[in-house]
């Protein structure tokens, strides 16, 4: 894959919702530049034409004309259209139209200074119960040792594996301070707030390995709180998943 992922403008978009965002960002900038240039031409024209040397006597009466009024009304209409036509529907879809968990992957991501714990439900697909008092260096997720559902769970630290072309629901929570789960290629930012669980969903359309970043200052290691998003085919994911799951069974890994 030779396509350049990152550059000086938007990175490539591998999400199903991102094209609307890109369309909005790009056209918004066209609109902004058009306004600025149009307005700037008038500005420079005035500076040249009405400099003291060229126009020694100012006009007392205000300049007449409706152009500025039309421009202002135009700005209001464009803003209203973008707001009602694009931004609100996209946000509503993003926030409310969650995929059916039966047809989607579900993972938990637990942020901490300065790592992303990615909690998979294991073979049974059920997340074990977690609680803060169970957290140890061997049990970063704080899985309850008495809960059988958690026996096959595993924690892929800083690596989120997901299947391409299949929606994924991520339950985000934090152990200590506020973090923010950001994946530029997915056009996604979501604060992760201790004391709350916030879910987001997305669907990736391209395979590959991409950066996950922390977007909210979380301490001295904020800058290196980097995770990897691995988007892969169903088969590759299954291979990886089985490998992780069997490590748990054979006790190679200490996670409960």
């Amino acid at each position, binding site marked *: 894959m030779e396509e350049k992922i990152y550059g000086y403008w938007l990175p490539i978009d591998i999400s199903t919702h991102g094209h609307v965002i890109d369309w909005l960002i790009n056209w918004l900038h066209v609109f902004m530049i058009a306004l600025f240039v149009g307005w700037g031409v008038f500005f420079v024209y005035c500076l040249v034409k009405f400099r003291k040397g060229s126009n020694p006597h100012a006009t007392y009466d205000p300049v007449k004309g409706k152009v500025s009024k039309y421009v202002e009304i135009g700005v209001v209409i464009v803003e209203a259209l973008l707001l009602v036509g694009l931004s609100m529907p996209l946000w509503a879809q993003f926030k409310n139209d969650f995929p059916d968990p039966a047809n989607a992957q579900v993972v938990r991501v637990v942020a901490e200074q300065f790592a992303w714990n990615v909690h998979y439900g294991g073979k049974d697909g059920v997340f074990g119960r977690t609680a803060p008092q169970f957290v140890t260096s061997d049990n970063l997720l704080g899985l309850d040792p008495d809960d059988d559902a958690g026996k096959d769970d595993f924690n892929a630290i800083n690596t989120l594996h997901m299947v391409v072309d299949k929606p994924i629901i991520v339950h985000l929570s934090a152990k200590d301070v506020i973090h923010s789960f950001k994946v530029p290629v997915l056009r996604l930012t979501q604060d992760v*707030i201790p004391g709350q669980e916030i879910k987001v969903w997305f669907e990736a359309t391209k395979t590959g390995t991409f950066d996950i970043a922390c977007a909210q200052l979380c301490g001295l290691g904020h800058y290196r709180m980097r995770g990897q998003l691995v988007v892969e085919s169903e088969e590759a994911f299954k291979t990886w998943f089985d490998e992780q799951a069997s490590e748990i069974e054979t006790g190679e890994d200490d996670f409960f």
Partner: protein
Amino acid sequence: MAEHSHNDSHGHHELGFWRKYLFSIDHKVIGIQYTLTALLFLLLGFSLMMMMRWQLAYPGQPMPWIGKLFGNTNMPEGIMVPEFYNQLGAMHGTIMVFLGVVPLAVGGFGNYILPLQIGAPDMAFPKLNMASYWVFACGGVVMLISFFVPGGAAQSGWTSYPPLANLATMGQTIWLIGMVFLITSSLLGSVNFIVTTVQMRVEGLSFFRLPFFVWTQFVTAFLLLLAFPPLEAAGVLQLMDRIAGTSFFLPSGLVVTGQLLEVAGGGNPLLWQHLFWFLAHPEVYVLILPALGIVAEVIANNTRRPLWGYRTMVYSVIFLGFMSFIVWAHHMFMTGMGTTISTFFQTTTMIISVPSVIILTALALSLHGASIRFTVPMLFALAFIPMFAIGGLTGLPLGLTASDLHLHDTYYVIGHFHYVVAPGTIFALFAGIYYWFPKITGRHMNTVLGKLHFWFSLIFMNGIFMPMFFVGMAGVSRRLYDQTQYAYGAQVQGLTAMGSWSAWMLGLAQIFFIVNFILSIRGGKKVESDNPWDATTLEWATPTPPPHGNFPETPVVYRDPYEYSVPGSDKDFLPQHVPDSGNSTSEPASADD
């Protein structure tokens, strides 16, 4: 009691050095105290940033020469540690906003100019005014001390979000105490500004004859008065969390570095964000409105014609003031906000852009038909307009939740608000300094140095902030000690290095200003009249510099603030306090000026 009350026989009693220059109750001395203190803090805040820019441009490399001065804790072998980087970041923001721009725009210009422009002998409460400055100065000292406590200064960003700020080192406690001082100072000041504007306008100076600058200060005072108390409360709550074991902002069950945190719990970190931004969004307009006021004064004076749509501009400023209280949560779109709240806040955010557009349009239309004098203050005021426009326009993609999904908390945000505040507000403040300097000192600042200062500042400001839009668009988060940790950050590292070089060059360009400012106080060209710019507003009707009590005779106002180039008038300006002369339709008035 030998003490003279300020309202008897102005200006003729001798005060000792302490009462005259340090504990003065004269609004002009207090204004100068604010101005000088704020300029020093601006320089300090900018210096912190110039240090950070080294780490940003050359991550992990030792800083030549200067690095060694900061000791092994902060910069072992000249290499900045992340903790120190975060301190510099948090304190840059705090100092620039609370100790630099606001004190200069409101405490400095507001104090000095507002009473003069309304023809008042002083502020309504001169002692309160002095208290306001000294409480501010205490806040400044407390903030400075915080660098020297164990663990260094606050390092959780100028926004101090809990739980991070709750867990931070002692510097955060000092920061909170400092903020309580600064907020108290602003509250004392704002009450004074409101009462002074309402009560102390001279005869004939109705609200719609007020200079636009007074309007902006008046609205700003309301913003300070109403928005700061929630932050003061929030600051005290966070202080209690840190020193008294409360948990206003701490939820239960936090596990920090593997240890269960022993706190009461049950709090909510988002509460802080709501309280903080309920202040801090109006605060944005506290930074902008006085700047708009200065720009309007300078533009009216140097276009030699009335402002286009003065009343529209006044209504827009009032509307901006109201709206600024109901947009705060657009800073929090990514906190997990649902559709109802986000709909409300993105709608109000779009609405608030309208009055800003109207004001900028009015300023631009004022140029059409003008006779523009390109004085140094005018250059800064003119540059303010496109710079502020860039800042405003780039707010649009951030104000819509959909595009904000990608841009939130990236360098795009940093670029956006710096365009508003740095080449925006700070340019306006420079315009104000160059414009009113002759009234305050009786001398002009040097024009050549002023123009060098202007052009280099304009170029390098853009060199710093324009690349940030591209860095942010690429996805780079703000507040990163080293963006090259990420593939997309490494990709745009060149732009960040360019920004750093621009910042250092901008620092050099300020030498023109500093030299000009200091030398002109005693060595500048003397003004030839009390009204060297041929201006119309009342501050120019005073002797130069204005004596204690300001006006030898209380002026009376006869007309609108910007009566330039009135047809049929022999001069191209008619000051507000000069009665109509014979060539107008009214009766000849006794010419006693």
